């Protein structure tokens, strides 16, 4: 497994991050501004680094979501100040913000562009999801609200590949699938296991986490045929629907002994990647018959005979002598002294807040992923 590419940008939490389509620009939410970093080729030191290129100022309160649309290059940001801005790149390199009136009276918690990039969905603490689309006649972003069954804050939104179905996880313990069909902007979606005629705000599926724990993240599988969500009871649930108005074909819930996950991503139809409060990245493998935890992406410290393992042991020998010299601590195999315990064994030193797909290979499988965490690091992992 190749070493992950670590970019320690600053010492502040990163609520959300997003890469541009060519992966040369990285947008990172830092408190009330979005910092845009440009990738510089590996001049000094190992691997490419990111240099601060621009800052998008406009929001008054903490930014909770950033998303860059791959084709159009537009950036949408949502913040606790109840607003969303759409930033358009201009020829001179300046970013022009357009305020979108979401008409919500609580903070916006997350934002994602639809795959068609004609709309974006904003989850909020106002128990609504604002689906926004651009109306050319009025030169204005209009927001329509999905309210009906939502009973608490929406923590995350995820789009189905057809840009009509929208999944939302909420603190009321449910993960739901809605239709956000907008006449004039969307094409009629093909009939799928989620439903056929789908007017706006139709609930295509509502799934309760068994312990009613907060749902932190939801994601559709690459084909859209299955939905996965992770909740605060440290479980991951995968739902395979069979048809509209019918009970699902399978609902598989996997409980783990790890800390809860905050972000999940499908790397293929049969594999999930999750990250959360454990500060590490984990993989799940399975299908409609069953799922299980299949491993972690972190370096295996003990035992591995490959190069990374060797280096690890060498480093800890060096550290052991260094700590004996500096701090007077005698080292030893099993004793607590001598081993540096001020750093976590994982790459991230604090919880991971977002997981994004970085690179997909020819067959649509995700080959590399990027994670952003509360420690201010953005790390690119190879799967």
């Amino acid at each position, binding site marked *: 497994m190749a070493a992950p590419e670590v970019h320690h940008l600053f010492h502040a939490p990163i609520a959300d991050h997003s890469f541009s389509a060519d992966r040369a620009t990285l947008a990172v939410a830092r408190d009330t501004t979005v910092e845009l970093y440009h990738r510089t080729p590996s001049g000094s030191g190992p691997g490419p680094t990111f240099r601060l290129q621009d800052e998008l100022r406009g929001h008054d309160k903490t930014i909770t979501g950033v998303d860059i649309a791959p084709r159009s290059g537009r950036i949408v940001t949502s913040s606790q100040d109840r607003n969303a801005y759409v930033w358009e790149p201009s020829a001179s390199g300046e970013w022009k913000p357009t305020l979108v*009136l979401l*008409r919500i009276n609580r903070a916006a918690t997350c934002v994602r562009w639809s795959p068609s990039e004609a709309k974006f969905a904003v989850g909020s603490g106002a128990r609504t999801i604002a689906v926004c689309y651009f*109306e050319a*006649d*009025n*030169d*204005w972003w*209009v*927001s*329509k609200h999905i309210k009906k069954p939502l009973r608490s804050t929406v923590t995350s939104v995820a789009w189905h590949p057809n840009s009509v179905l929208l999944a939302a996880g909420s603190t009321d313990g449910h993960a739901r699938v809605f239709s956000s069909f907008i006449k004039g902007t969307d094409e009629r979606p093909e009939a799928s296991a989620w439903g056929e005629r789908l007017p706006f705000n139709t609930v295509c599926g509502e799934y309760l986490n068994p312990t009613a724990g907060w749902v932190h993240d939801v994601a559709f599988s690459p084909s859209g045929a299955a939905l996965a969500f992770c909740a605060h009871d440290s479980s991951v649930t995968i739902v395979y629907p069979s048809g509209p108005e019918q009970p699902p074909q399978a609902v598989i819930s996997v409980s783990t002994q790890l800390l809860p996950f905050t972000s999940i991503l499908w790397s293929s139809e049969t594999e999930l990647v999750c990250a959360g409060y454990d500060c590490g990245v984990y993989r799940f493998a399975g299908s409609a018959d069953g799922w299980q935890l299949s491993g972690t992406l972190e370096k295996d410290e003990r035992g591995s005979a490959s190069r990374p393992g060797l280096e690890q042991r060498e480093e800890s020998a060096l550290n052991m002598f260094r700590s004996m010299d500096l701090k007077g601590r005698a080292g030893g195999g099993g004793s607590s002294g001598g081993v540096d315990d001020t750093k976590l064994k994982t790459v991230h030193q604090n919880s991971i807040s977002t997981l994004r797909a970085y690179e997909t290979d020819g067959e649509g499988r995700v080959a590399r992923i990027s994670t952003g965490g509360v420690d201010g690091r953005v790390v690119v992992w190879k799967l």
Partner: protein
Amino acid sequence: MSSESRLYTFSQDTKAALRKFRLGTSRAKDPQAIIYQIDKSNMEIKRADDEVYTNVQELADELPDNSPRFVLLSYPLTLASGRLSVPYVMINYLPPTCSSEMRMLYAGAKELMRNQSEVGRIIEIDSAEDLEDIEERLKGED
């Protein structure tokens, strides 16, 4: 007031049509409605289309979701007392999703439109569904 008449314009045809509509609808048996819009490019107030709507449902379907409109409505009513009345009102349709620019454009023209069309009163609605109880509102306020 006069400053608005310098900003918004009515063509002579529109003024004549407004007059004709006001005078000609008091004898009709069913509701008569015309939708007016403001052309952003030349600030002219004119008809949205050439149809006179006689069905409230059709009128509700025709109103756009995200733009304000003025509707001149003449609605024959039979009051509780048995009296026949055909109130002529203007409906100010302002959906909450429309942009601030449009809101201000139509708000500025509201009084001018009222005077030009010589309606009895203005009714504010913010969604096409509100049109369904227009009859109740007209009866209640008489």
